């Protein structure tokens, strides 16, 4: 997992499994950043993520809820077809900016 921060954006590159196991730690890390600035753009880059389930989606939705009222933005890029289906079933495709191939890259 890799988190990159600029003044306007936090990019989270999760690798491997984005499931129950990684969520508490990632949430704690992000909570610290969001305390400073809730109007930030948080981009989840799933290029290295081999698996995501409702625990991962829940974390992304949590970031959305923390930032949206303050003018923040959440995007999810490099989403596989399988993961896209989860976002669709969850009804998150309407709330979040989800892209199969992201122009927004880390580094």
């Amino acid at each position, binding site marked *: 997992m890799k988190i990159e921060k600029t003044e306007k954006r936090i990019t989270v590159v999760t690798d491997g499994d984005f*499931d129950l196991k990684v969520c508490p730690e990632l949430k704690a890390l992000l909570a610290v950043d969001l305390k400073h600035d809730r109007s930030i753009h948080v981009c989840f880059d799933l290029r290295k993520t081999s*698996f995501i389930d*409702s625990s991962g989606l829940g974390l992304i939705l949590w970031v959305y809820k923390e930032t949206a009222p303050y003018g923040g933005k959440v995007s999810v890029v490099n989403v596989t077809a399988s993961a896209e289906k989860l976002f669709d079933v969850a009804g998150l495709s309407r709330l979040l900016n989800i892209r199969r191939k992201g122009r927004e890259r880390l580094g």
Partner: protein
Amino acid sequence: MDKQENYVKLEFYAKDQNVAIARLATAAFAGEIGFSLSDIEEIKVAVSEGVSNAIIHGYGGDESRLVEVTLTVEKNLFKLEIKDDGVGIADIKKAMEPTYSSVAERMGLGFVFMESFMDTLNVHSSLNCGTVLLMTRRCPHL
């Protein structure tokens, strides 16, 4: 015994790192049956949701308790059973409603995903006796 017929049972501590182990074993089991890669991705979500629920809701974080995942295939039907001896579910119908969750930070989509990605889902549960999920999915015609 029929060449395809198979049975694998896993029993493990209710620890979050074991969700991945259950998922991998289930994916390998489903792969042997001949499910496609995209079918397997869906089956992985189903087992992951069920096992996560047993850990979080069933046992509420008590890692010393045991979760059981039973995989069987027989007569072209893949069966996935997930069992805990935890707190159980008082109102199964309510628990299965989309977006209902007893935990504030969760999405309440576990059952929705299990239902979406498997052909059938049956939930048996009683308070303080635990929960058994039985899911099935037709095997691909090979």
